């Protein structure tokens, strides 16, 4: 009995060493880079790209590990703070990870080491800069654009002949669709961030887009501004066109309502298109920028850089990591990104072949305005988003007023954002 147990132990020990030792020896043969991401849905895409990279760089291997979207920040922060973490990091934009870059976790990048940086516009580069030191920490790879997606077949059956150009026309189209027995919009209230994106799509025309953005950032105007309150009211007004029991409809269900051709419109970002097509490959999707608030107003397309690639400041394989980062900055990689996962590429030298993405990008370049909360106010807690997301959920059921919500956002932002301090 005793001997048997002992034998078992030896066998187990041998098994463990057998697993450990090859890892130890192969490390001397090739440099292994680790690459973390929150895009679980892009695993196949990245692994395929890594193969292409490894074919040209046989001395480097790259291991791609995606984590659950909602857990990624915490996992990464814990690893980096403990002095660990991957060599290559997919970094969230603007305030999404500036706390980590301010703490010195990422390696500052120079255009000499990463030439692709030189070709990116300043507004895009800002997404991957430190909040405090303004150094470049990441290579942005994609931008997002907000607009209204529609189902041309439902619109035709409902007798909506022209795409709405004004808010009044949009409401009229909603009514026609409703009368024809369809859901006007798939959007619902179960998910705070989705409501925030809805507001960021339809709101800018009410508050005056980029000029208001600049004024709030400079502290010349506050969130309590009448125009901003009107933009919040627009969200409350749209609630009556949401599906029944909209308060409880979660993110996947609301997107499913549009993808499965029950709803005529979906208000949100271009990044939903990939998801819609995965649910319903034959879905016919059209896209137009949010209509203007009134005849005198301007139309806007909310936009922001979606993420970037960065290098761990504590990496032991700096040269290999830079090599891989530069691969992520190549034209070929950028082209694959747009062709295979329908992202809008940051780099101006990438050619967009997808018709829908091309159309969105055209509107984005002419009507683009920064996503107010993401670009401007996600750097410290409490962020404007942290107040607005639950706030919108209250607003659409009448639990708060646009005026009160605007006041709440102002109080929260003024507590840490210097140009807004003392303003109400």
């Amino acid at each position: 009995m005793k001997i048997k147990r002992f034998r078992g132990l030896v066998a187990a020990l041998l098994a463990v060493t057998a697993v450990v030792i090859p890892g130890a020896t192969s490390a001397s043969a090739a440099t292994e880079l680790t690459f973390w991401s929150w895009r679980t849905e892009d695993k196949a895409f990245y692994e395929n790209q890594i193969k292409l990279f490894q074919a040209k760089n046989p001395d480097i291997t790259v291991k791609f590990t995606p984590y659950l979207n909602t857990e990624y920040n915490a996992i990464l922060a814990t690893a980096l703070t403990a002095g660990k973490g991957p060599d290559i990091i997919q970094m969230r934009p603007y305030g999404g990870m500036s706390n980590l870059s301010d703490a010195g976790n990422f390696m500052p990048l120079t255009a000499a080491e990463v030439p692709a940086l030189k070709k990116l516009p300043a507004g895009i580069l800002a997404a991957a800069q430190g909040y405090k030191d303004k150094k470049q920490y990441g290579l942005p790879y994609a931008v997002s654009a907000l607009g209204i997606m529609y189902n041309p077949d439902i619109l035709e059956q409902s007798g909506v002949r022209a795409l709405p150009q004004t808010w009044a026309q949009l409401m009229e189209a909603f009514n026609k669709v409703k009368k024809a027995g369809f859901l006007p919009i798939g959007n619902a209230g179960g998910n705070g961030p989705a409501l925030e994106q809805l507001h960021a799509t339809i709101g800018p025309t009410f508050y005056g887009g980029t000029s208001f953005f600049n004024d709030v950032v400079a502290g010349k105007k506050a969130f309590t501004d009448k125009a901003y309150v009107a933009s919040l009211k627009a969200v409350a007004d749209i609630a009556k066109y949401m599906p029944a029991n909209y308060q409880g409809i979660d993110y996947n269900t609301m997107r499913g309502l549009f993808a499965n051709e029950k709803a005529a419109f979906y208000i949100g970002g271009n990044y939903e298109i990939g998801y819609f097509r995965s649910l319903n490959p034959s879905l016919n999707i059209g896209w137009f920028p949010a209509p203007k608030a009134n005849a005198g107003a301007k139309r806007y397309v909310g936009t922001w850089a979606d993420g970037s690639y960065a290098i761990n400041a504590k990496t032991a394989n700096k040269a290999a990591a830079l090599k891989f980062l530069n691969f992520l900055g190549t034209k070929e990689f950028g082209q694959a990104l747009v062709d295979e996962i329908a992202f809008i590429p940051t780099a101006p030298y990438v050619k967009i072949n997808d018709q829908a993405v091309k159309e969105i990008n055209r509107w984005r370049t002419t009507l683009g305005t920064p996503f107010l909360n993401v670009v401007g106010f996600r750097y410290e807690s409490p962020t404007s988003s942290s107040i607005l997301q639950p706030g919108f959920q209250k607003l659409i059921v009448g639990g708060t007023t646009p005026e009160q919500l605007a006041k709440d956002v102002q109080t929260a932002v003024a507590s840490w954002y210097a140009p807004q301090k003392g303003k109400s």
Partner: protein
Amino acid sequence: MASALKRDQQRAIGALLTPALIIIVVFTTIPALTTLSYAFFGWEGFKRTTFVGFENFQLLFQYPYLDQFKAALKHNTIAFVVIMAFQTSIGLLLAYAMFRVKRGLRFYRVVVFLPVIFSLVVVGYLWQALLDPYYGPINQILTGIGFPELAKPWLGDTATALPSLMFINLWRWVGFPAIVFLAGLNAINQEFLEAARIDGASEGQIFRKVIFPLLAPSLTIITVLTFIGAYEWFDLPFVLGGSNGSPAGSTDTLALMFYRLSFGSIDSGANNVGVGSALGVLIFTLVGLGAALGSNLLRRREVEQ
């Protein structure tokens, strides 16, 4: 001789305790003390800056954190009271039924305990699907049997979200008190019950006057564990309402708020480790004091067999 043996014994006990003590100190005591120290420093993201005294605690008691704190504390307290009232009493009833059942005890025990061993994430998604306002079978059944006005957006309505969560919690956890009480019931000396029966006591009287008092140690454990569980409630609210306690913070709890403040939320951004740690210290104090006080008080009313 006797004292030498005792010393040997003590040494042996000491040697056996050391590994556990080391683990507790390294993984519990030191992190707890570190968190305590974090609460008194300023933070830039994950970088500690200067000593700020009680500033983080002051911030915690200002808008918007104070509102969130009050709401979360209220939700935790409601959860404790409701879970105590329903989960524990239903658990006790189930235990008593299983105690009295003549055949099939093993089957009932498995059925009652089964949800407890399910992965909580699975339980969360299962109930999310059941309660879905659009496709969910619960609302379809309610509408189908002629009560369309009862078909609600259960997890999306600020009025029904927290009660729904507590119901799901009950569904999942009720087996735990049931098994603990069943063990307690089985530990009761049968002679007491027989003596009571011979004295002519009814089943109800036996339950109230003999069984219930003798179950006090089990009740103490369940009460203290429920208290700790309710004030550190995180998993189910996180799975169903995310780190912001959706909808509109109506399912927010102290632990969710702590998580959000310390690590930041992916959807709404920046964290504040200092205020998060201050909240952690408060939760720790609240749960620690409450559990110690509660178990002391409850133990006093326990009776010896």
